[in-house]
């Protein structure tokens, strides 16, 4: 049971993130919503790689070969996803800066094209 808690957290994070993206009007909050979804997915990946009573998959001088380790592949995947997330976040925030410069507001309802 205790091992299922991360999955609830995953669901909560993704739903909160979607809620923020759909219903929040501030652009920064939308960006935060996307990062929340991203952390939810990352948490999901990490949780999948966990095995009961395992240690982190690091070979140091102290560990013997037989120690049970978590799966390293999901962690590598998560890392890649975090790297991508940083790039997306940086891009989104710089776009927000430019939007603010042009529109003078961060209200998503006012950020739109107007047909002439």
């Amino acid at each position: 049971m205790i091992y299922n808690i991360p999955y609830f957290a995953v669901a909560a994070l993704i739903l909160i993130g979607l809620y923020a993206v759909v219903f929040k009007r501030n652009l920064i909050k939308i960006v935060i919503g996307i990062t929340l979804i991203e952390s939810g997915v990352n948490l999901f990946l990490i949780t999948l790689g966990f095995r009961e009573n395992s240690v982190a998959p690091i070979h140091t001088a102290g560990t013997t070969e037989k120690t049970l380790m978590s799966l390293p592949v999901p962690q590598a995947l998560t890392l890649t996803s975090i790297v991508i997330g940083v790039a997306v976040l940086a891009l989104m925030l710089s776009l927000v800066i430019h939007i603010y410069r042009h529109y003078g507001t961060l209200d998503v309802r006012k950020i739109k094209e107007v047909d002439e």
Partner: protein
Amino acid sequence: MLEFLDPFLKTLQTDSGFWNPILWGFAFVIIFLIAYIIRGFGKQAYKEKTEQTKAFLSGNPEYEKEQMHIKGSNLYWGFMEIMKFAYDKFNKMHNGNTGDYVLWFVIILGIFFIVLGVL
């Protein structure tokens, strides 16, 4: 000698028909010739660049050439007017709000879940 042309000239066979642009081209040329001949039977009294070709606007004065151009949004005015009930809804959909765009995604996700997951 011209065998290499064979794959180019083969006809595209569909289930109940076929489509060959080369044949179509021949047919087009023939029909064009026929139409041209028919055009030859037209009124001989018609002369270009005379009074006959001038626009007649029910006696109203003719506009300047530059003002005669019908702008893009004036075309198909009648169609838009008739379909107004649909366009009102469509315009409401395309409101430019990012959140609403994502909301549509969530709705589609829900429909797919219900149809594929539950059934």
